[in-house]
């Protein structure tokens, strides 16, 4: 099982947390595609609270956190 936590605007039209069944080779890229999140909307991407890459393979039990970019002033 992979738990995915979404933050800020990524929650719009989605849940705060989404659970995916684990399979060998599952990545953040697969998850964001399934959730219909654009790559450009992924600014901070954490695997178990540590900076990760969306193409990194996930392990069963991983927790993924995704934050959108904030850039205004």
């Amino acid at each position, binding site marked *: 099982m992979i738990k995915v936590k979404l933050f800020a*605007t990524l929650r719009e039209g989605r849940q705060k947390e989404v659970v995916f069944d684990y399979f060998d080779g599952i990545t953040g890229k697969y998850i964001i595609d399934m959730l219909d999140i654009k790559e450009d909307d992924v600014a901070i991407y954490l695997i178990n609270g540590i900076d990760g890459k969306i193409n990194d393979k996930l392990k069963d039990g991983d927790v993924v956190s995704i934050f959108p*970019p904030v850039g205004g*002033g």
Partner: protein
Amino acid sequence: MGRYDRNMNMLSREENERLRNFKVCVVGCGGLGGYVIEMLGRLGIGYITAVDMDVFEETNLNRQILSNVNVIGKYKAMEAKERMKLVNPDVFINPVVEKFDIENGERILKGHDLAVDALDNIETRFVLQDICEKLNIPLVHGAIGGWFGQVTTIFPGDRALDVLYKQKVKKGIEKELGNPSFTPALVASIQVSEVLKVLLNRGEVLRKEVLYIDTYSQEYHKIKL
């Protein structure tokens, strides 16, 4: 010293006096930058460089503390100076009416103790991070978008923005959401608290971590970078 009485005893008298010797460069005088300059000036930071090439427009009035109906069409950096004359004449404001970029950045930043990122676009933030690193100047980053915001303090070599804007994204959620009155004030306040701690070398700063602020759900996350 009556002006600074309420800064005591949070700061010592000696610390209060030291503040007037610091030079801080605030890059961007819009939503964040206006509040940052206001608060740095009231604290008594002696020398503040205010960088912005823009003039005030009507659309700024909902959130930018330096704006009012009488200054529409006037340069933001110049208005920072005018306002500080009224707020705290002890503070010297050095207005720079230029677009901060790779050509002029080093000249503008040189000689400052610290820089504040109050820019409104991601691309220029990376330029600012590069130049601060080159000049060995700490940088307090803040950004806002709608109900959301973030703050981190970047020391030379940390390169926190590389993690914060992972895919080198060009635009943030503010392009869709705009910015209200309260997130600039909130994020700027946290930035100023970081500036004060870095300058006085006390307290805990948001180094290698970002405070991600969500006023919609009132969630505040400190994330290690």
